[in-house]
Each structure stands twice: as C-alpha cells, then as structure tokens.
C-alpha cells in the first residue's frame, strides 16, 4: 500500500529533521503552542537587562539627594510592569513544561507503536538476518535518545537561541562596541564547543556501540553459562569480558571527560569575557569614547552594569546549547536507526483471496456466511468480470516444480513436487539441511518461492492473503516459543475465540492435560521467560495443544516430537492421530517411527526428492529409505 513511498524518500534525509517532522505531524496544534510559550518565556527572561539599566539610571539620579519618595514614583511602575510580565512568563513556562511532558511521552508512545507495528509486518527473513539484541536496542536505547531530544535538547536549543537573539538586540541597543567584544567571545565559545562537544559526542556514540558489543558478549556467555561451567572455562570467559569492558571504559571515560570539561571551559571563557567587558566598559567610560548603538545613548555606568549581566546570560545559554551537543548527536544516530527499522520494506501481500465462513447447499453450492459455521471457504473475487467464486476449504496442497534459494547463488530446493490431498499425511525424511523445513517455510509463505507453483485448494497461494493462508495452516515448530501469561492464555493463542473448555479439550487431545493439571495452579499457572520452568517436552506438548485449538485443515509438524521421549511420544502420537484425523498433515521427523504411517513419504537429499511412496512401497523399493530404515545408509 505504501510501496511507492519508500523510494520517494531520499535515503540520506536527515533523521533529526524526520524526527521533528513526525513530532509536528503528531501534534499539529500543541507543538506550535509550546513553541510560542517557549519563545515568550525566553524573551521575558532576557529583558530584565532593560529594566536594570533603567532602574540604575534612576538610582544614579536620586542617589545623592536620597529622595526615595521621588525615586519610587519612577521605579514602582517599572517594577509593576516587570511583575506583570513575570506572571505571564510563569504561566507560559508552566504551560510549556506540562505540554512538553505530555507530548514527549505521547510522541514516544507513537514512535514505539509505529516501530512495533512496522516490525510485525516485516518478513521472517528480517528476523533471520538480524540479531535480536540489535532489534531490542531500538526499543530501549534508541527510543531513549529521542526522549532526550524532544523533552530536553530541542526546547533548550530553542530557548537558548531566542534568548541569545533577544539579548543580542538589547546589547546593540545599548552599545555596539561591547556587543562586538561579546560576539568575539561567543565565537570562541562556539569553536571550543564544536571541538570538545564534538569529541564528547563521538565517544558517546562509540560508547553506545561498545555497550552493544558488551551486551552481545554477555548475552551469549549467559546463554552458554552451563557449557562454560562444564568446561571450566570461567577464566577465559572472564578474560574475554575484561577486554570488552576495558574498551567500554575507554569510550565511556573519554565521552564523559570531554563532556565534563566543556562546562568549565565555556563558563571560564565567559568569566574572561566578563572581565574584558568590564575593562572595556571602564575604558569606554574613562576615555568617553563616542557610543555606537541603536538607542543613541551615551556610554554610562547604567549601560555597563546590565551589560555584565547580559554577558553572564549569554554565556549561560551558550553553555546550555553546548551541553546538548552530544545528546543531539546521539539522538540523530538513534533516530537514524529507528527510521531505518521503520523504512524496512514490509512483507508484501498482494493476496486478495480471503477465508470466510461458509454454508453449503444440498446441491453443493457454497455461500458466504456471517456467522461461524464450522466450515470455511476461499472467497475468490475475479478482477476481470467482477464476479466472486467460493471454493470450499479442504486442505489440498500441491507443490509443482518448486525451486528456492535463501541467497540467490545457493539454491536449497530443486524441482520439488509434492501432492498432499485433503486428509492425507505427507512426511519428509532427510538429513539436516536437506531442505525439509524450507518446504514448510514456503507453504506458509515465510519465504517466497523462486520458481514453480504452490496451490492450496487449487488456488495459487500468492493470491491468498497471507494472514488467511496462515490461519488455515497449523504449525508446530521444533523450537517452542511460549508467551508470558497463563498456560490457558498460551493455548488460546491458537484461537482467540476459544473458551476455556475448548482449550482444555485441546490440551487433552495433545496429551498435555496430564502435566498441566499437575502444575501448581493448573491451567492458571503463569509462564514467564519462554516457559523456562517447563521441560522441553512439556513446552512442545503445549505447542501442540495450541495448534489443536486453532483447528486448521492443514497441519505442519516440524520435528514436533523431537524433544519428547518415545514413551511420551506414544501418548502424544495418539493425541496427534486424533488431531490429524481428517486433516492434511505435513510431518518432518528424524525418527522413522514417527513417519511410518504416512500416506506419502518423501526422501529429501540436498534439496531434491530422491524417493517417494508409502512405507511399504519404499521398503519394497529397497532404495535409500530401505537402507536408512535398516541403518545401512546415511543421508549426509
């Protein structure tokens, strides 16, 4: 749907601008309002200089007479105006900070959701080719840099920019000479910030990278901790860690050292500037140098004193900007990575054939039904004449001359042809790497075939909407993934409409009911951390129950029972046989015992089907399967 947008966007577009752009789109009203508030309070906070100048000049006129009554008549109105402005400024600061807090979190929420939603639509290939730790860091570190950017760096930058600009004009109003001097000082500060701040930013970015590296190292070692123990490899693993740790220290230390030094540098350039301003002011007063200013006022002490304060203000604001440099650089890098994830082309889905509830008339015609009927049909709209045909979902899967390669130069499957009629059990046997799992990856379109055809109930699967295609296929994988939640929730994952009774029924079917009811809280036992407190076999039983509750016409069992011992497997097998009844089933297994009762057994070798037939026929053929069965031959 957004296919044409991706290339239209130049790859090199500044991620910072994009981040700001998406913020603007998210808050078209609140953002400008906030900006106005920031500008207003920035202006107010920079004008006291004007008042101080006026008050001091009044003081100078009255100081010798000591006439407070006379002076207060002139000072009081000014102070009241100041108070008025301050009240307004307080209001706007309050509004602005509250709005910022609200917008920052709202923005992060939107970015998180956009990222997550985009990620759900990415093809499986993306997850197969990216480290999970790297994907995770988008949600933690990178998002955090955006928070810093929106809540702090950008407002600080805007605020400081406005103050500097206003103060600059006030300075010009008072005295051009001193303004020139301060401009020189500010130039020096900018040079220093660029040098030191840039160094700090560079090392902060590097720190982030080494942190990722350390994370990866620790993660890998943690996962393999048991292996480390068994091999007494603690020392080596510690050495490896210390090396990464030292690197991390180096980057982190440099980043902070630069950042820490930036403050004193700027502030003390400010101090020197302050002194120079005082000296120059003194000189100007002493030698009565003609003033150049917008106001045309002559040089007076009432100009020099507020000027000194303005110097402080200038310095303070430049310092503030310089402190934000590293977080802006980091936000830019973080935003770049976030947008890179968002820009990933989503899994394309041109499918238009959908799965609908159906009723069948006695004469065999199929109708779409709004209610759940227990029968399903493929709804196939034809673009040519606008007509719609319905095909009853039966579970007939045919692969014809399928070729496939994960990477173009390394073909994995050649000319694979498989016919699975409804209710038939098709088994794939072969060595690891022969391409068994790849075939199932193609049927549910985790990957798309390079050449050939796959038809489901006579429909090219490319025409079927992916979600509907996958809904009609139940997959039990070798590695079981469970979600945080109760056992019941995990079974229900297969069919969100299933009630508790249906879930328990499915668990019984899979043979999982027995161990579940022995868990401390039965079906309400909370599973965390991918069901770490269950054995591999128990997790697989849950996965089977999950597929059972989905009740699909086609099942793919990819080594589903590999981690279950043969005794338990008998129990599971019985359940599975019940489960498989009336369904088309693809079975991948190492154990020949698992596949013996298949209607059709495909022997795969290096991506080719070298033999096919049922158990009996294959044995009689006395080919590879026979040798495999009798243990005389190995497929690798």
């Amino acid at each position, binding site marked *: 749907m957004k296919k044409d947008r991706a290339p239209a966007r130049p790859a090199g577009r500044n991620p910072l601008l994009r981040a700001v752009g998406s913020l603007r789109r998210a808050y078209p009203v609140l953002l400008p309002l906030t900006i106005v508030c920031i500008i207003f309070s920035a202006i107010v906070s920079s004008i006291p200089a004007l008042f101080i100048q006026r008050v001091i000049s009044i003081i100078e006129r009255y100081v010798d007479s000591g006439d407070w009554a006379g002076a207060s008549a002139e000072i009081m109105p000014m102070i009241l105006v100041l108070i008025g402005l301050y009240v307004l400024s307080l209001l706007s600061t309050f509004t602005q900070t509250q709005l910022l807090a609200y917008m920052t979190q709202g923005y992060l929420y939107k970015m998180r959701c956009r990222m997550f939603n985009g990620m759900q639509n990415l093809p499986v290939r993306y997850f197969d080719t990216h480290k999970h730790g790297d994907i995770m860091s988008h949600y933690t570190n990178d998002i955090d840099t955006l928070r810093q950017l929106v809540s702090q760096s950008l407002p600080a930058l805007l605020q400081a920019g406005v103050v500097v600009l206003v103060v600059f004009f006030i300075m010009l109003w008072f005295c051009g000479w001193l303004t020139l001097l301060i401009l020189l000082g500010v130039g020096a500060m900018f040079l220093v910030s660029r040098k030191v701040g840039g160094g700090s930013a560079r090392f902060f970015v590097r720190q982030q990278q080494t942190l990722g590296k350390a994370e990866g190292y620790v993660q890998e070692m943690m996962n393999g901790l048991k292996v480390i123990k068994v091999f007494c490899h603690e020392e080596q693993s510690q050495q490896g860690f210390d090396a990464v740790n030292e690197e991390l220290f180096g980057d982190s230390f440099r980043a902070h050292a630069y950042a820490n030094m930036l403050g004193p540098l700027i502030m003390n350039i400010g101090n020197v500037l302050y002194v120079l301003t005082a000296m120059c002011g003194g000189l100007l007063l002493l030698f009565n140098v003609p003033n150049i200013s917008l106001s045309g006022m002559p040089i007076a002490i009432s100009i020099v004193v507020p000027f000194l304060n303005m110097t402080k203000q200038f310095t303070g604001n430049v310092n503030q900007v310089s402190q934000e440099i590293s977080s802006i650089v980091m936000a830019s890098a973080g935003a770049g990575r976030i947008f890179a994830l968002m820009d990933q082309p989503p899994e394309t889905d041109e499918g238009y054939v959908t799965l609908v509830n159906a009723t069948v008339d006695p004469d065999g015609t199929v109708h779409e039904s709004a209610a759940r009927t227990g029968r399903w049909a493929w709804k196939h709209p034809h673009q040519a004449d606008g007509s719609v045909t319905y095909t009853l979902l039966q579970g007939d899967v045919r692969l014809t001359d399928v070729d496939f390669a994960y990477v173009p130069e390394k073909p994995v499957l050649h000319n694979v042809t498989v016919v699975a009629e409804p209710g038939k059990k098709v088994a794939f046997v072969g060595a690891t790497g022969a391409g068994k799992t790849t075939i199932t990856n193609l049927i549910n379109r985790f990957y798309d075939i390079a050449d050939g055809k796959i038809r489901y109930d006579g429909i090219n699967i490319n025409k079927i909407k992916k979600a509907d295609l996958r809904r009609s296929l139940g997959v039990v994988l070798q590695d079981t993934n469970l979600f945080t939640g109760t056992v019941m929730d995990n079974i229900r994952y297969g069919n969100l409409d299933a009630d508790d009774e249906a879930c328990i029924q499915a668990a019984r079917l899979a043979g999982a009911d027995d161990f579940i009811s022995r868990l401390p809280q039965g079906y309400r036992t909370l599973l965390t951390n991918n069901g770490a407190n269950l054995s591999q076999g128990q997790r697989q039983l849950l996965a089977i129950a999950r597929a059972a509750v989905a009740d699909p016409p086609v099942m793919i069992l990819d080594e589903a029972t590999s981690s279950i011992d043969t005794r338990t497997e008998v129990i599971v097998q019985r359940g599975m046989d019940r489960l498989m009844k009336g369904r088309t089933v693809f079975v991948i297994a*190492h154990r020949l015992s698992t596949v013996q009762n298949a209607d059709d057994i495909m022997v795969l070798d290096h991506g080719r089907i070298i033999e096919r037939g049922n158990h009996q026929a294959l044995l009689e053929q006395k080919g590879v399967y026979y040798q495999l069965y009798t243990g005389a031959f190995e497929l690798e």
Partner: protein
Amino acid sequence: MIRRLARCIRDYKAPTIWTPVLIIGEAILESLIPFIIAELVNQINDGCPFETIVRYGLILFGMACLSLCFGGLAGYTAARAAGGFAKNLRHDMYACIQQYSFGNIDRFSASSLVTRMTTDVLYVQMSFMQIIRTAVRCPLMFIFSIVMAYVMGGALATMFVVVVPILLFGLLMIARKAMPAFHRVFRKYDRLNEAVEENVRAMRTVKGFAREEYEKEKFAAASDDIRRDFTRAERIVALNSPLMQFCIYFNMVAVLFFGSRLIISSTGAAINVGQLSSMLTYGFQILMSLMMLSMVYVILTISAESAHRILEVLEEVPALRDPENPVETVQDGSVDFDGVCFKYAPDAEKDTLADIRLHIASGQTVGILGGTGSSKSTLVQLIPRLYDVTAGTVSVGGIDVRRYSLQALRDQVSMVLQNNQLFSGTIRDNLRWGNPDATDEQMEQACRIACADDFVRAFPQGYDTMISQGGTNVSGGQKQRLCIARALLKKPKILIFDDSTSAVDTKTDAHIRAQLAQALPQTTKIIIAQRIASVQQADLIVIMDGGRITATGTHDQLLQTCQIYQDLWAQQTGGATA
C-alpha cells in the same frame, strides 16, 4: 549497600578523591569572581585610573584560568573515577556470575543479568559522577553564595530567608511525589521490553498463527498504559522549572525594589550599584545550586534501584564452592550414587530424585532411559556437581564429589548438554574449549570420532569456518556433533551424553557410538537416550520413572524382567516387524 559498592572503586581511589578537592577549588574561585567584579564595577563607577582596571582585570583573568584548570581537571578525574568504578563493577559482577552454580543461574534470567550489567551499571556510574562532582559542588556553592551575599548585600540578603525555604520545600515535595511514580513506571517499562523481546523471539509463531494484529493491540495497550504513567510522573517533575523561575523572578524583583530603596535612602552608603548587580548573580547561584542538588537527589533515588539490582548479583552466594583442601585428582571413572535425594528448591514438595542407589564401574557404558520428567538429566548433572545433592552422596572415583576442586572434577567429567551451545568464533576456537592446546591432529581425530570431520571439511573454510552467535549457521545435528567433539578433546574419565544425538541421524548415531567404544575403551560413558537402539549395547541400562530408578540390567535381562522396557522395545521395533 554503599560500602559494598564502594569496594569497587579500588584502583580509582586517586581520581575519586581528587575530584572533590578540585571541585572545592573551582567553587571557591567561582564565588570569589563576582566579588572581585563588584569591586571592579565600583572602581569604574568612581572613575578610577585605567591602571586599576587593568590590575583587577589581570587578577580576574588569573582566577578564571585557575578556575578553568580546576574545573577541567575535575571533569577529567570525575570521568575517570566514575568510568573506572563502573568498569570494576562490571568486572566484579561478571566474576560473580562465573562463580554461580546452576541453582543460582536459574534464579536470574540471562536477559536480566545483561541489563544489570549494562543499563544498571551506567545509571550507577552517572550517579557516582554526580556525587563526587555536583553533590560536593552544590552545597559549597550554596554556602559560599549565601556568605558572599550577606557580606555584600547585608540586610538585602535576608530575602533569601524567604525564597530558599520556598524552593527547598517545593523541590522536596516534587521529588517525593515523583519518585514512587517513576519506580512504578520503570518496572512496567522493563516488562514492556521483555514483551518485545518475547515477540521478536517468537516471530515465527506470531506469523504462523497470523497474530500480528493481536500482538499490535497487545503492545499498544501496554505501551499506552506506560505513556499514561510516564506522563503523570513527568508532569510532576515538570513543575520544577516554573518553581525555579518563580524564585528567580522573586529574587530579581526584590533586589531591584529593596536594593534601589536601600541605595537611595542611604545615599549609597549601605550598598552601592556594583553590589546590587552582584546580589543578582549570587541570588541566581544560590537558587541554581539548590536546583542542581534536587536533581542529584532525583538521580540518586532512581539509581538506587539499579544499585540494588547490582548488589543482588554481587551478593548472591554461590551455592557450590570448592572445599578446603580439595582433592585434585580423580582416580578413575567409577560413579556411585548412594541414597541420593535431590530437590531444586528447598521448599519443593516432591523430591526430583528420590533414593537413588547406583554403581557404575570405571570404563562401563551405561544407558539411561525414561520418560519426560523422569529426572534423567538431573541425575547425570549431579556427577560433575552442577548441583549438590539434598541427601546422600555422589562419588566419583570413590570420593564424594564435594571433596574435589570443581576444576579437577569437571575436567574429568565431560558432559554434552541437552541444550548445547557453540560460541561465536571459528570451529577451531570452539573445539579448543575442550583443550586449549589441542593440535590440529587431535581436533581432527575428535571430529572423526564424533562424525564431524567430513562436514567440517566440506565447509569452504574448513576448521576456520566462523560459527555465528548461537551457532545458527550449522544444523542441529552438526551442532550436536561438534559439541561431542569438543567434549572428547577434554579426554575425560567420564563422558556423559544427555540426549546429545537427538538431531543426528540413526546411522550416524550408531556410528558415533561404535567409534566411541573403540577409541575410548577406558572412559566411563553414560548415555541418556530416547531410542533403545542407542543404549542396547550398554553394559548397564537404567530405567527411570518419576525420579526413581525402576529397573537396571542389560538389554537381555530387562527384556525378560522389565515391563516398561518391554513396552518400549515393542513400540520402537514394532515398525520393523510389521
């Protein structure tokens, strides 16, 4: 808590101490500068000669340079101290984790340990730096500025009596309210990230069930919940800035009003224009230092949570320790279980293993069969002392395993785990885990026994092929065979296979077993298996059920006497006779 963490400063004591010292110097200078400047302004005001201005200027310039030196150096030492502290913390944590027994590891999850070692340490590093810099500097600046304000402004400085308590009270209230809100939301935030991780890991399942939309809704709900909580917390903190502004404005108005009245009514005797302007500066500094202090307070309380999580890692007592005067040599490969009972948690109701009595002679091949949950794996994990028994004893070479040094014991008991793992690096690197000094010849030999040599050679880079993280670029069967080769390189007296050929073809499996029997006749081999064929030739077959040994014997004996075994045999060979 602080004392335990402070121990990690170690070799970074010098910068840790220098930082506050330098900061004090900087703070003193920074409060003196406005004082001198006020003098200068007054001098200018009085129309002093140019030389006086230059003299003051030079003094100030010198002070600025000195302050820069102090400040810059302090920044450097602070970064070094904090960075070093963090480095030592990570080192200690990693060292601690290395000492953990399996029991300890099971308590923490891997990803939680990773966060503790990275994010949590970063937080603590930041607050450590804040403590030695800001926490020293701010109170100092506060006191100096107050003193100077009194010195210069006299009566005028009394207004700080009004404004300081207001600010202090306000800041404290905000921190008080915000803190618990943040604690809550951080915990939720952790859970959100765990959910994302879970989703990424289970992507095939998500897509397989076409649950993308469901996952999106789930995530949006959780994420929105966090947004609301975070917004609430941040809005409380956002009150800081108007509060601070109020105090600065108050200060400004008060100084201008009372200051000008004081000057005029005393005809410049009590206070002069220069002092007036310094009062503004000091006022700003006083308020600023309070503000910074409250920020430090917030950072500290937030990182206290992190510090606590770090301490949990550091203070976890390893359940297994080397005994005093450990035995360093394992005599032979005999194994004895004598009345062994075992529970994973002391409060577990049922024993995972109950009353295990078993003698395995050195050099024997033992097969262990049993259903899921029959505790086969648990049983063998007691041999290299990955867990300690709850009751009874496990002996290797006739000596209780608890009397060996762990290194000596585990060097002689090699175990191929069920969930095995290769590490990123070349195949050669991985094999060297078994023996760091292994020659190519030895490696190839081990690989030949494990039937791995052929496929390794088939890789374009052979033994130098890179294994990616988690070993995803080799198949399950190949991984298992490499793991077996790795274990063989240790040349152990006892070799344990915990269902470690499950992904290997029957033929290869048989081949490996034959090779093992031939190449390592002296080694005790304990094989947990699913298939009877894998253990049929064993000297002893142990049948386990529900944490107990139900039968032992050879294949022929068991076929005669054991019902479970007969069933298994019938079931596994049924196809062949059919």
